[in-house]
């Protein structure tokens, strides 16, 4: 059975393996516990590796996981073991770079949480139900940013994000 390239999940974890933003596109992990267990395995297995310059890759339980770390954030993309690893790597790169664009280079957990809406929209624009929508970081970031008021640019979106932050502080 020939199949379209399919993504099983996208995970953004912090430096302790806790969730920042995650999205599953497969029923392979039916319960919350199954998902958490998977995230723990993935995190532990990759913790000691250095995935900061080049994207790294690993395999277990018939899943292929490509990943990259920056600062205190760990980016993961998972596919099945029949999948073309380079396609997974391209998706990872798109995710990684678009987050970088959206957070204006300040890619760390704090900023990610402060702009969680952007991160979630970003993931939403990359994969739909497991099918790859877009892999180009500029295109992805563009789709996210234009959802701000009157199709503003990324920098204005960032300004909006800062406003969000200010407001939540003053709550």
């Amino acid at each position, binding site marked *: 059975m*020939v199949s379209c390239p399919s993504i099983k999940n996208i995970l953004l974890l912090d430096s302790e393996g806790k969730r920042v933003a995650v999205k599953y596109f497969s029923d392979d992990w039916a319960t919350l516990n199954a998902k958490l267990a998977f995230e723990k395995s993935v995190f532990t297995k990759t913790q000691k590796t250095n995935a900061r310059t080049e*994207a790294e*890759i690993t395999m277990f339980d018939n899943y292929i996981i490509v990943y990259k770390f920056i600062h205190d954030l760990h980016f993961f993309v998972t596919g099945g073991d029949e999948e*073309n690893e380079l396609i997974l790597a391209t998706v990872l790169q798109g995710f990684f770079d678009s987050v970088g664009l959206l957070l204006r280079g300040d890619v760390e957990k704090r900023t990610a949480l402060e702009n969680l809406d952007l991160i979630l929209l970003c993931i939403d624009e990359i994969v739909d139900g497991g099918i790859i929508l877009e892999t180009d970081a500029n295109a992805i970031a563009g789709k996210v940013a234009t959802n701000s008021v009157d199709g503003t640019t990324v920098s204005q979106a960032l300004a*909006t994000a800062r406003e969000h932050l200010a407001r939540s502080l003053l709550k």
Partner: protein
Amino acid sequence: MAQPLVKKDDDRDDEEEYSPFLGIEKGSVLQEARVFNDPQLDARRCSQVITKLLYLLNQGETFTKIEATEVFFSVTKLFQSKDSGLRRMVYLIIKELSPSADEVIIVTSSLMKDMNSKTDMYRANAIRVLSRIIDGTLLTQIERYLKQAIVDKNSVVASAALVSGVHLLETNPDIVKRWSNEVQEAVQSRAALVQFHALALLHQIRQNDRLAVSKLVTSLTRGNVRSPLAQCLLIRYTSQVIRESGTQTGERPFFDFLEASLRQKAEMVIFEAARLTPAITVLQLFLSSSKPVLRFAAVRTLNKVAMAHPLAVTNCNIDMESLISDQNRSIATLAITTLLKTGNESSVDRLMKQITNFMSDISDEFKIVVVEAIRSLCLKFPLKYRSLRGGFDFKKAIVDSIVLLIRDIPDAKESGLLHLCEFIEDCEFTYLSTQILHFIGNEGPKTSDPSKYIRYIYNRVILENATVRAAAVSTLAKFGALVAPHLILLRRCLYDIDDEVRDRATLYLDTLASGESEATNDQTDEDVKGFLFGSLGIPLNNLETSLQKYEVSKEPFDIASVPKEVKSQPLVEKKAAGKKPTGLGPPASKPTSAVDAYERLLSSIPEFSSFGKLFKSSAPVELTEAETEYSVNVVKHVYDGHVVLQYNCTNTIPEQLLENVTVLVDASEAEEFSEVAVWPLKSLPYDSPGQTFVAFEKPEGAVSAGKFSNLLKFIVKEVDPSTGEAEEEGVEDEYQLEEVEIVAADYMLKNERVDEYGLGPRDSLSEAVSAVINILGMHPCEVPHVPPLGVFIGNAKVLVRLAFGIDASKHVAMKLAVRSDDPSVSEAIHDIVNG
């Protein structure tokens, strides 16, 4: 007005725990969601609340049915706002909440309105949301919008519709199939990803129609493929067509397409084509990429290919070997398992050495893979692993892996044990054989049919050297009552020439007999079992030391039980050399005083005290020439399982004080030895000799030979000769010494006896040789570094040198030199020949 939670500018250090969601709680957020009902909507605020809700959902928080419904209803009110940022968040949360059918109705009209909106992002996202939440009836209502969207000018909209089509195809295939024309049009789209999505959808629609797929592929392989993803799809479909068509006709263009794909720029395309063809040379190139993902992808594919067609992958062996040390352990494991399939005999040795280091690194699931691969390798090279001399590491690795297999895979136990039994039939390493016998003794009795192993063990009792015989006796005992019908063989062991074997046989026979006669007594049974299988409560080293202190007198040598079959080293052709005998007469007595002195010195060093009884110490061998600054000689101390090199050093320079003196030994030409301890010489002043030691482990009972190169290393401090005081600071230095060789003769105590015999007329020299050999009951063999025939009987080592001469009248004369550490053995052998 609430107080700020954290001051914005100062205390950046405090921020590790800071999160905008610190202290967030579902109840209060749900309360906040009431703002959705405000007539004057605050877009920013509503967006924030939605973000918080999404955060909660993302963290695993669950909403009850009622809560979810309430939130959903409130969210629908947000369609009133024109803020696009907010609208986007609304789309997100609707998808997350997954409303039920009756709830969906409320938003349908709003979403349908958005589907026709001027704003591209609204159209695209509304389509995606709708497709996610609607059922068949609603779908027919919006069908025409979707069809329009598929061919929309805006690529984002078109992609959204096409991807939604792929999802909808699963639940409503008949409806989606009606969109073929539009999808077909989209395949021709200029927008890269639209083509990709259209291709995916069209293939899904047509996948059961082989001809249609073939046509699809044909049209596109000739046409323009606009994105790497689309190309990958096409490669997959093309190889599917080739596979399914079976016939050769019309396939040329497909192959051409695949080949052309190998030369594309995008790596994912090259790889997709390479892995499906498979194109080994291309994959081989990827093996040396700097990117881990590429190396992994290539080695994984080659690994799969190698499992079915190992010969196809052999060209990659060299590249694979360098991957064994890859930082990425998954890559390394795949490389090793591939090499185990594709490796040839020479590379296998290298591999086995690396595997033993490697096994501790990898996860259990990979371990099983590696062990299985090793097993099939053993089957592939049975000759290799049986007759490999000097391949101790190799054999040990195999044995370890079989033991692992038995432990981890219960089904493999029986065949694994049999494997081990066959292994010890040919194993010349006493250490390994005894370990294996011990293991069989523990595992064998537990199997369903233990008696099949007994035969192998009996053979060891008859055929092997004393150490192995003793181990075999113990193993037999563990089989307990099963051995009973064959006790006669154990009884024969009572006459074994070796003390250990006899003692063990006696002990076990008694134990088993008592077990039998009181078979109903459970306590005795327990005792027997505990005795056979239990372990000593005291450390073995202590036991050994106390035993050594106990004096034992030697038993009379019983010639009748010299075994006819003797385990020997592998056969090689060699003619006897004529060497002058070193001497006749009564065997030289051991130089007791020197040995005692050495023994005392060595046992005073804690690291060496566990080595057991010192067997022999060599005479000092000079490692430096005369008149040199540092004079070093070496004494070789031989133990059963160890060798200690004692370096006697003298410093002949008055102006120097040497400290921390050690010898760096390179044992790469002494494969059976491994360095286990170093005893440095703390201080070596002028003209005051001192010793430094290096200890090696070697297989027990084996006559291991090797060459060791030596480098004297030390810290040198200047000494003022007038005061005799040394400087505070020293300089590191080294001094090359001569090599040390350990040969078989080092294991011999000299008890030599030489005699000449006439053997009368014989047909040929070789016939004469065979005759003598039969009489002696020995096998000729060759041990490198040692002159012609050498043989070892039990624990009494015997070196026999036979020089044959045949004259014109075919009379054979034989000169027999026998050297042994037991003088009565030398006598005995001469007697055999005489009589």
